[in-house]
């Protein structure tokens, strides 16, 4: 048996295995993980991830509080606090706080979390930090559906949202079906996505060009992604969707951790590769659909939030919980900025997230030494 030179340092016992697998082997220093156990449920988490997660959760809460207090309609902080405490003396102010600000803030957090979670799923599945649901043409398809509703059918916001979901899902299915030839090869999916995306993009441009100016502007606002005029109705629908999708995403996160090692390795350790992948794609698409139906296609959250989360926790892949928290934080803060920066004009929140996203990518290229992208 060849000696492992590293182990021949003086005074260090050689870690020779005993015959068979019974007796315990010497264990390395256990510094990095914490095992949380409660009854039949047990979970192993890295300390740093746990810490970052807790801090992020606190930050999200703070941001949401700030956005509630400092939102768009000029209200003194004192008054807002009073309203939150139950004071209903000023019905209009009360209305603005309870029917507009609070749902807006909650929706922002929920949409951010959903988008970030979806982005994390797609980036890990495609093993590409630039991966996003756009690959299967979802965003473009959603835009087509929404634009058709706005420009061709002059529809109400709820119908626009429904159109977006139908358009997006239809496109995703079409792209998947068109790239299916005894299974879906990754490169074929990308190319078909490009082709379908281009066609839909052209149709969108056609609609925007041929529409009346007001219709086109309404469409442009929707396309930017906006939380303006958010009410409890869409928020509750989004929450209902997330109540199902988030647990599903978390359950599938474990096999995802094996899928990033490659299909073969994952299959060898007992992961049902095709089934898990399909489930993950379905959950990812559903998350995006729910988010887009609620707030339109917010740029960049799905792309940037998981990577930011990954950097904060210094892990090789984007964990779902941290990604979701970062996404929520980004959207809530962006919405606050969007409301205040050109006050009283409200910018759509998508413009702020888009700018942040662009800046993020530039920073990534310019200031990252060990750049995992390249």
């Amino acid at each position: 048996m060849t000696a492992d030179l590293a182990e021949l340092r003086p005074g260090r016992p050689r870690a020779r295995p005993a015959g068979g697998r019974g007796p315990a082997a010497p264990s390395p220093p256990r510094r990095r993980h914490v095992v949380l156990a409660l009854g039949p449920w047990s979970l192993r988490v890295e300390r740093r991830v746990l810490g970052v997660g807790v801090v992020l959760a606190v930050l999200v809460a703070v941001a949401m509080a700030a956005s509630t207090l400092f939102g768009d309609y000029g209200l003194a902080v004192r008054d807002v606090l009073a309203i939150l405490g139950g004071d209903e003396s000023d019905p209009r102010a009360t209305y603005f706080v309870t029917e507009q600000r609070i749902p807006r803030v909650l929706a922002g957090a929920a949409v951010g979390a959903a988008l970030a979670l979806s982005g994390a799923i797609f980036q890990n599945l495609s093993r590409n930090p630039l991966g996003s649901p756009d690959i299967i043409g979802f965003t473009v398809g959603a835009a087509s559906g929404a634009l058709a509703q706005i420009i061709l059918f002059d529809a109400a916001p709820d119908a626009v949202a429904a159109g977006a979901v139908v358009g997006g899902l239809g496109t995703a299915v079409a792209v998947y079906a068109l790239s299916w030839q005894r299974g879906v090869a990754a490169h074929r999916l990308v190319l078909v996505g490009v082709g379908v995306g281009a066609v839909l993009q052209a149709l969108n441009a056609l609609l925007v060009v041929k529409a009346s100016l007001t219709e086109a502007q309404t469409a442009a606002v929707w396309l930017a992604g906006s939380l303006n005029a958010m009410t409890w109705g869409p928020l509750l629908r989004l929450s209902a969707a997330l109540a199902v999708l988030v647990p599903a995403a978390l359950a599938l996160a474990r096999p995802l951790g094996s899928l990033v090692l490659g299909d073969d390795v994952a299959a060898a350790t007992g992961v049902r590769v095709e089934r898990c992948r399909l489930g993950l794609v379905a959950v990812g698409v559903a998350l995006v659909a729910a988010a887009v139906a609620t707030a339109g296609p917010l740029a960049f959250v799905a792309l940037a939030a998981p990577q930011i989360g990954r950097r904060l926790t210094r892990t090789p892949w984007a964990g779902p919980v941290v990604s979701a928290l970062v996404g929520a934080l980004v959207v809530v803060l962006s919405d606050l900025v969007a409301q205040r920066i050109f006050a009283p004009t409200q910018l759509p929140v998508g413009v702020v997230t888009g700018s942040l996203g662009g800046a993020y990518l530039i920073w990534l290229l310019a200031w990252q030494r060990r750049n995992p992208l390249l």
Partner: protein
Amino acid sequence: MTVAAWTGRAGPTAEAGAGEPGGPGGAEGTAGPAGPAGAEIRTSRRAVGLAVAVGVLLLALLLSLMIGSNLLAPGEVLHQLLSPDGTGNTSVIRGHRVPRTVLGAVVGAALGVAGALMQSLTRNPLGDPGVLGINAGAGLAVVLAVAVTGRTGIGFYLWFGFLGAGLAAVAVYTLGSVGRAEATPARLAIAGVAISAAIAALIQTVILTDQQVFNEFRLWAAGSLEGRGWPILRIVAPVVALGIVGAALLTPSLNALALGDDAGTALGVRVRRTRTLTMAAVAVLCGAATAAVGPIAFVGLGVPHLARAVVGPDQRWVLPYAVPLGAAMLLVADVIGRVLVPEEIQVGIVTALLGGPVLIALVRRPRLKLL
């Protein structure tokens, strides 16, 4: 074919098999007997193909001149071109359709060549010249020009568009080579995505706050040959010609570089200089085209593939093919856009509507030749 024959340089006959350049045509374009006799056959076949391409272009030119609000016979078209008789048809043909047609041909050629350069430079068959931030840069400049000055009209913001495209290309290149790193194709692509995204957000901010700007922008962004007459052509054509000449001069170096940076250096190519110059050529060609006409999809992406399907990855042939093929493609798209519905569909939209399904059909072929 040996590497030396490809690049026209006296160099070691390196194994060209390892660094297989992207794109189809390895088998199709160079099938036939090997050796000197085979080379002669190939060259004459390619020359014939080029003549066919030019023929297609002439046909497209003719169609573009014939078709419009009223259909003119070919004889009438030729008559007006050669000996104008001052009738209404003269102004239609000479004043309106000729500049539009020529502009379409020039822009199409520019995009085709830019695409060929792009795909060769990045060794990526999905290379589209717009990826380098050029479309976004032109768009932002146009938007700002209208927003700040309140003036509209393509004759006015053409210059801004060109400037914006150039600045964006410079920004992308700088970002791609920041930190004294090499501006490798991968870095350039990601820098392009980053800059385009940042610019897109800025564009959105402006158009959502100014109605007039929004109106101008949505028309420009569709990519149209409408309303661009001789003035535009006079500005754009020389620039494009310059770009194409530059591209032609770069072809031997690009051929060598297609085998990989290391192989190229071994053959004596100055990699960094070639890359910079190629990017400049792409910026000039694509910038001029986009500034004049708006962003046009798929011509830059598809034309090189068509060319390579016929002649293989030799840039010395791809470029001459890209010129008539690109021009013809754009003109045909424009004609279809005018013919299909009573109210014209912009050419930028038509190219995408047609290009997308063609791409999908290609991808679905059993032996995928794209990659």
